[in-house]
């Protein structure tokens, strides 16, 4: 009984304090710019506990932009190994999902899921900071679960968003401006 309560507390704290590490795996920098814009005071992600960290060993969520290029492959794997468990990976931008404009290039070794497990994709070229923040909040909700399973509406309660999920527009929510 006691262990359950401690486990619940730990999961709650994991959800409430997602620390990021930002890595560029060969991106054109557009997504990087949007990511650091979303960390800026204008969007106030500190309310969700999000904090950009200087070292992958300090982070929970690894935010990777760009298609993985041949030169950054080892770096991506090394940094992923340096992030301590429990961790989540957010692929920011369409390059992480499909290589986007760079598909078929000889120096690109493929979308991110080929090399490390990805938890959240944030599509866009580049995605809006709002979308990036929603992606990070979803990753934080994933970290707050005991075992990894598909997110329920209850898990996403704190996640900001446009009120859209896989089932369509949520009732009573306004569309994002």
């Amino acid at each position, binding site marked *: 009984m006691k262990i359950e309560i401690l486990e619940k*507390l*730990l999961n*709650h*704290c*994991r959800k*409430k*304090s997602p*620390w990021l590490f930002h890595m560029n795996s060969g991106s054109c920098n557009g997504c990087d710019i949007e990511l650091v814009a979303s960390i800026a*005071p*204008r969007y*106030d992600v*500190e*309310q969700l*506990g999000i*904090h*950009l*960290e*200087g*070292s992958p*060993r*300090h982070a*929970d969520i690894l935010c990777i932009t760009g298609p993985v290029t041949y030169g950054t492959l080892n770096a991506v794997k090394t940094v992923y190994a340096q992030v*301590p*468990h*429990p961790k989540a990976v957010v692929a920011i931008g369409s390059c992480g999902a499909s290589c986007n404009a760079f598909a078929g290039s000889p120096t690109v070794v493929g979308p991110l899921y080929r090399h490390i497990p990805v938890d959240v994709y944030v599509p866009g070229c580049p995605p809006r900071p709002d979308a990036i923040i929603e992606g990070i909040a979803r990753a934080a909700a994933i970290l707050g679960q005991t075992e990894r399973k598909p997110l329920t509406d209850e898990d996403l309660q704190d996640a900001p968003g446009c009120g859209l999920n896989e089932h369509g527009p949520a009732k009573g929510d306004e569309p994002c401006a």
Partner: protein
Amino acid sequence: MAWFFLYVERKTIAKMQQRIGPPLLQPFYDFVKLLGKESRGHSTTYSLMMKAWPALSVAVLLAALALLPVFPADGGFSGDLILLITLLELPSMFYILAGFTSRSIYGKVGSMREASLSLSSNLLFLVAVMMIAVSSHTFRLSELATPTASPARWLGLLAIILCIPAKLRLNPFSTSSAEQEIYAGPLTEYGGGDLALWELAHGLEWLVLSGLVVSLAFPRTGIKVADAFIFFVLCIFLVVSLATVAAATARFTIDRSVRIYWHWSVALTVFFLLSAFIFRG
């Protein structure tokens, strides 16, 4: 209380930047989350010595906290100022050592910067402490806790307040943990539970340093509850002021930071020596 001070610092910076900022329990969430992370285990690149530094920092700061003369008439363990200052120097030293023992180039650069900065800011700090002690003719904390009207004492307290940004690595003297340049600086190789202890040590440093200044500055009423309340309010006021300055300034480079502290130290030392002749106590 350490967590509350960390919260006040982050909330003040947030308000200065016209945003809402973290919820009240955020430092607590950070701490518990870090405790739940996988630890790095024991290896040649993550030695037992590295793990000792954060634990030692927390232990030393708790000891320093116990020495603070918040209720001077209480008796008990009335240490003296020299012991408190020694205990305060140690966490800074452990931070530097942590960077050097971590065998990471980022750690080395961060530690070199922190070492140069603490060398110059400690000069100002120690001269200020000497001024305060000499102006009251005592090193005992329980006697120092009652404020006097001498200008030397208040100038000494002001000088200590000027040293606090360097000791806490706040803007404008946050060069040793400059994320954009050296990743996480001395703490780059730390993770999990040890990082939780470093964050706790940082919160305790806030508490001890602001507690030191406030407990040497405010008049006691004799009623414990009122004294505790005034102490707390003045500490929060100090935290808010320092966080406001941190939010409003940018980071100085290391040579500029060191030069600023050397200038202030020289100015204060000249004043100290002159006042020792002119005022005579």
